[in-house]
């Protein structure tokens, strides 16, 4: 089952902790967003393999944008 990792809030991508092909566990850090001068960590919603990464460092994302896809 593939699940998209959605942006919980609008912000700028500060760092990306995974790359395509990585295996992640639920609650692993996927990336860090910066919104209103605060760092917000986005965690993996499930165990699985990262099959797509939709953003890169420096990108501006809106709330609910797809950040990555994890195939569990």
């Amino acid at each position: 089952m593939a699940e998209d990792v959605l942006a919980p809030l609008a912000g700028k991508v500060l760092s990306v902790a995974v790359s395509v092909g990585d295996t992640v566990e639920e609650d692993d850090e996927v990336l860090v967003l910066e919104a209103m001068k605060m760092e917000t960590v986005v965690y993996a919603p499930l165990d699985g393999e990262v099959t797509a990464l939709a953003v890169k460092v420096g990108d501006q994302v809106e709330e609910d944008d797809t950040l990555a896809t994890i195939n569990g």
Partner: protein
Amino acid sequence: MAFVEQLGILSVTPGMVAMWAIALTLLYLAIAKEHEPLLLLPIGFGILLANLPLTGLMTPEEGLLWRFYRYGVEWEVIPPLVFLGLGAHTDFGPLLSQPRLVFLGAAAQGGVYLTFFAAQAFGFSLEEAATIGIIGGADGPTTIFLAAQLAPHLLGACAVAAYSYMALAPIIQPPIMRLLTTEQERAIRMKKGRKVTAREKLLFPIAATLVIILLVPASAPLIGMFMLGNLFRESKVVERLAETAQDALMNIVTIFLGVSVGATMSADNFLRSDVIFIFVLGLVAFAVSTACGLVLAKLMNLVTSDKINPLVGAAGVSAVPMAARVVHKIGAEANKKNYLLMFAMGPNLAGVIGTVIAAGIFLSMLGG
């Protein structure tokens, strides 16, 4: 020996030296610690200038700083211009998507009134008590606006207290938030609000201006400029004005505001036992406001099925966006997938509006 008599150093008083120490402390906080440097640096330097002897800087009708203060602050020009910039900077989306959270911004004015009551019981006049109470809103420009009208001699102390508590929100608020909420409550993940349309955001500043000013006309200078700035932003047709209001103009008025506020803090005005009271009462006001917001959020949870994380109530004080950041951080401690920032921005913005309304009511009942 007229020259010797003119030497500044012979006219230095111990009070002045004490004020230099305060000025240097603020400059240190601004420069070395980067605490609110945009404000504390000009305020600190203003204090230093105002406490040098024989400068005439604050001499009525003549002094440079007196003119800044008189025409900028006393004439109510600068605080509304700050609000113009804030309006151009503010996205009311988080508020519009969760209208019910607006009440938390009203509840958090509780500290303002409690402190007003306490201050007048301690012997402050009603005008002074109102100025001290409004510190609980943790809104710098509103505090300065009200102080300039009701109690100019307390302006410096109240402004510094308001800005300090705003900056200290991450230290003052968390213990209160932990005390009044359970771990489970802090872990509540709120349901996302609906998407807000561009049309709503466009209509909001116009409608809010009508509603609030018709109810509390005395709030017009602040609300009027706040909403005009926001209309610059949301109309999308005057981007140049929106940019100027939130960047260039904001920076310009910040310089004059900071220096003027600092300049009001002469040794005579500031080194009084009253001032310690003001800082203590201001702190109480801020703490009680935080608590009132939390408690109303908990009460609202008793009657609603769509649970509110009570932490967002603490953002009802208007320290934007510090209080919202604190809420986000404490929420994430309880549940790391809890993203409260945008939910907290709603009450946070409502808190600004609530504090302005409170100031408007004080002004209409006590001013003039």
